[in-house]
């Protein structure tokens, strides 16, 4: 094991963690504010990728794909929340069934529209290079992922931590009922958070589509990772989602590189351990 191996794997883990953060931060916020376990969150990732793919095919613009993917899926999220999930407050089982149902329908729909072949979203030439540092080689695209996720994380953190709107969101996470009792329009806050979460997952899907590809089944492939991130980090906590993403990205990468036959073990054993020691996750509160 050379130093290059460790650095390269750490970098790969970091970039995968960055992608996971885009996916999981929204899932965590949605759970925090609405107590909804959204099993269709992986579908937003997959659909975002497909919409991005179509937009790149039509327009040739990767930037347009990012924007269109995020907006289109935000709209889907708004529709799901307003028309369906809002009618099931506090009914965990009903929500789980409904979001699984949506996930399965999205799967069929994607198969119908985009077929069963895997695609890779073409990325601009400027993002295709490799940055070398001595013997180390870092793909530019993975650096791009880290930069985007860091920016998103920074903006989310500033908004949540430093603005009145962010304080209202956190108040709704702390005590949803009492938040309404001090005049906060919690249904509007919920809708906004849901749309934002869906948009971020879709952004992850478009970006991930340029490196993992877009294919049937991507939705349920990423979903467990998102849940591990959110559960390990602590439901509803943004710092938790950040740390959880990094942890899962690194564990997954090193697990696959060092013990390929035990990759699930290296991911889920630490999760079980963390949960046993801290049932609410690293940053979660009861």
């Amino acid at each position, binding site marked *: 094991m050379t130093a290059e191996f460790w650095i390269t794997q750490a970098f790969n883990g970091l970039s995968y963690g960055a992608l996971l953060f885009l996916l999981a931060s929204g899932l965590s916020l949605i759970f925090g504010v609405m107590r909804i376990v959204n099993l269709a969150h992986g579908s937003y990732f997959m659909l975002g990728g497909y919409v991005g793919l179509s937009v790149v095919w039509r327009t040739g613009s990767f930037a347009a794909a990012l924007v269109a993917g995020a907006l289109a899926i935000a709209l889907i999220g708004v529709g799901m929340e307003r028309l369906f999930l809002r009618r099931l407050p506090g009914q965990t089982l009903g929500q789980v069934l409904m979001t699984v149902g949506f996930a399965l329908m999205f799967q069929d729909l994607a198969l119908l529209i985009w077929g069963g072949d895997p695609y890779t979203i073409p990325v601009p030439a400027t993002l295709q290079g490799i940055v070398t540092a001595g013997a180390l080689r870092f793909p530019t695209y993975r650096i791009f992922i880290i930069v985007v996720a860091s920016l998103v994380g920074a903006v989310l953190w500033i908004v949540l931590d430093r603005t*009145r709107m962010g*304080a*209202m969101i*956190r*108040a709704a*996470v*702390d*005590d949803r*009922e*009492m*938040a*309404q*009792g*001090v*005049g*906060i*329009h*919690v*249904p509007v806050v919920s809708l906004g958070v849901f749309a934002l979460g869906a948009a971020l997952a879709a952004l992850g899907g478009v970006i991930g589509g340029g490196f993992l590809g877009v294919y049937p089944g991507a939705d349920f492939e990423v979903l467990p990772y998102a849940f591990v991130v959110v559960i390990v980090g602590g439901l509803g906590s943004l710092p938790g989602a950040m740390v959880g993403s990094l942890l899962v990205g690194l564990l997954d990468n090193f697990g696959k590189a060092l013990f390929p036959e035990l990759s699930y073990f290296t991911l889920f054993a630490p999760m079980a351990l963390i949960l046993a020691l801290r049932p609410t996750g690293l940053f979660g*509160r009861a």
Partner: protein
Amino acid sequence: MLELSDVHTYYGASHVLQGVTLAVGPGEIVTILGRNGMGKTTLIRSIIGFTPPRRGRVGFKGDDVTRWPPFRMVERGMALVPQGRRVFASLTVRENLEVARQSRTGRWTLPRVFELFPSLGNRARNRANKLSGGEQQMLAIGRALMTDPDLLLMDEPTEGLAPLLVREVGRVIAGLKRDGLSILLVEQNLPLALAVADRVHILSRGQIVHSSGPADLMANEAVKSRYLGVA
């Protein structure tokens, strides 16, 4: 200001409020007394809209607000100091106050709340869960005032407080009354309740079983021992 007529409230199948009728006039303090589990909090929850009544009517400032969502009640001028304080634990003191701010009349501002409760001003950047019980109670009251209310619903604001702080809460309530605020006060502390109230109702098993002025209740040993367990 507030009129309830024949309000019935349920939790699932359990019929908790069984036809409550009462009114709070402008500038008046009406106190609800009653032993544990008699439906006092349920009454407050029915008014603010957390648990809307299944039957009956809640009127507020001339509107039928019976099934309004809580945030609309607050915008209309109703504020809640809930039982157990329920401050937002992960928010700072200042944030707890800021999120409740309504810009309707501008009577209540951050500086004015800090003037009323100087200890909150000193701890503005602290997280609410780091405050003492008394400070949390002040914060819960300050937060309600930030919504600039005409009617304040207070559910056992002295619960679990040391005698000195109970007196402090009593002074605050009296001061708010002088400012013209209407208050519906749920209280188990009989001396405080009687000292500030214009009228008193006793709730037992979801029904009002006694209504009078504070002096009449003070003199009525039978009612006190039967419904409040006061010897």
